[in-house]
């Protein structure tokens, strides 16, 4: 493995460049170099294999989650759609039966993870540049730089970040950067038995086909974070 040494000056310089990239409209960051994650909620069976694989691959501490699965149950009551959301232990040990409400409209599982936003609010608030958005669209954390102020956790609207009580730094999903750079898929994508999670560049054949689905959604678009995890077959109730 090549450990290219860089000086602080270069580091700062690259941060300035990154700041420019952040400030400029998205046209400047070439779309082809950036990865995206597509999740088809209709394929997800809530087995929790992804959560377990993530925990093993990334040594995620107990009761913290880099990825988790939520179950949405929507039913009609007096003309109002009622929503029940649950995620027992982050869906790690699968889901059990819940009482079926009368007038059930829809029920499905939604895997969640870090959105690796193109305009990440967490990167903007980090006081020491310990987290950044790199050229391939990964938002990473330098754990040897993080001062543990937890400001980024507060800023993340998706609840993707957690505080590692053992290392006293913030951690989160990296889309398995260490695997992707070695030509592998992220651990959760590798183990998904139904292909609910797929990962790649927007011009990959499978990704491109799925991205054309008109039901595709991003979460919390009103916050203008430009997330790069796209969801198929989810209702208005998912955010």
């Amino acid at each position: 493995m090549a450990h290219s040494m860089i000086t602080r000056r270069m580091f700062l310089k690259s941060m300035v460049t990154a700041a420019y990239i952040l400030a400029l409209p998205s046209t400047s960051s070439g779309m082809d170099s950036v990865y995206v994650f597509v999740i088809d909620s209709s394929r997800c069976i809530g087995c929790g294999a992804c959560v377990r694989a993530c925990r093993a691959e990334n040594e995620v501490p107990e009761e913290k989650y880099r990825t988790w699965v939520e179950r949405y149950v929507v039913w009609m009551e007096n003309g109002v759609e009622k929503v029940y959301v649950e995620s027992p232990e982050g869906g790690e040990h699968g889901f059990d039966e819940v009482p079926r409400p009368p007038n059930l409209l829809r029920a499905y599982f939604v895997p969640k993870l870090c959105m690796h936003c193109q305009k990440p609010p967490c990167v903007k608030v980090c006081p020491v540049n310990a987290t950044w958005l790199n050229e391939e669209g990964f938002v990473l954390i330098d754990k040897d730089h993080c001062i543990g102020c937890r400001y980024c956790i507060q800023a993340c609207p998706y609840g993707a970040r957690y505080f590692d009580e053992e290392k006293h730094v913030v951690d989160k999903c990296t889309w398995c950067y260490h695997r992707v750079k070695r030509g592998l898929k992220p651990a959760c994508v590798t183990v998904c038995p139904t292909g609910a999670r797929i990962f790649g560049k927007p011009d990959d054949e499978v990704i491109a086909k799925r991205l054309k689905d008109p039901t595709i959604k991003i979460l919390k678009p009103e916050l203008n974070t430009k997330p790069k995890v796209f969801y198929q077959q989810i209702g208005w109730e998912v955010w």
Partner: protein
Amino acid sequence: MHAIEGYVYPNHEVFWGVLIVVYPYLVSIITGMVTIYAISEFWRKDLKDAEKLILVATLPFVLSALLPLLLDLGQPQRAFEIYVTPNFSSVMAVFGIVYLTELFTLLGEMWFSFRRDIVIYAKNEGNSIKRLVYRLLTLGVYDISEKSLKLDHRIIKVLTFIELIAAWCLSYVSFLFGVVKSNPWWNTTILPVSFVFGGLAAGSALVILVYIIACKIYRREAREKVVDTIAYYLFFFLLAAFGLEMINTILYAYKEDVAWAVIKITASELVIPQMIVVIGSMEALLFLRFGRNLRGTAKQAIYTIVAISVLIVVFAMRWNMVIGAQLVDYSLRGFIGYSPPLFGKEGLLAAIGVLLAPFAIMAIVAYFLPPFPERKMAPSVTQPEKHISVDLAERV
């Protein structure tokens, strides 16, 4: 584990505990004290008697404002990274710079206003260690001619102006919370404004409290005019802070939008701090309004009660802002409960320690730089200018 109501993201917890309540609290107190100092410096000469006391009381707060932050950090040894590799798009990194501006202007201000005293002590002090400290503090210049003192005064005015700006910027620590767009409680325009007014109220209350207590300690009479003037400002500051806070809550209650959880926890998890804010503010406002007519000890007692209750009210406001907002999960479908642990780095005892630290430091600062000129010193120096200004102020 704390009670969870509704659905919350599995990683959700109260990440910033009671220490981060203390941090904006101390910072807002600094704003209030500096503002009172600026008021006395710029247009209320009747506060002259408390001027040095305010300086002596502000420095400990500025120094200990860093304590809760350092205690809260996961890796405090890397804290200086904020200066080494700063990210200027982060409010927190910018506050590092504002904080230093505040600290240095305050130190400058103190040096220029205590310079005359320092020079006299350096000449007359019996204790050799203390004398050495004073000699170092004089920077080797013993010139206390009228001309140089006048120059000092002009410099103090400039420094006060810079410090006032820095202190208000510091109080916009609320931006630290205000920029978090994902949290409905923090993501409001009123927050920074109500934060500043809360700080002004707490700062002026603390000045009243410290003044009354210091006068007791130094066995001198607390001037009614000083207390009255600060109380006059305190009334309006508190009114504004309380009003804005209430407007915010009422707006949430009325709009009933996606931030419903905010009002729901206000009515459940935050009942006690919310009641403290409402009842405490009402009480303090009433006492301030009618305390003015009292005389002597009764007035001092009333103002002491008011000052303490305002300090508690503002602390409850900060609690609501910092803890309350974090109880709401970003899924906006539920909230969690929070009670701080007693022990540990982020526990209640640590918070109480941090809150008491400024008073301990204050004792040290006051030991070296007594806020009230001692009587026995008066004959050894001539201070015509000062007498005149005090006399003028009293005549007005």
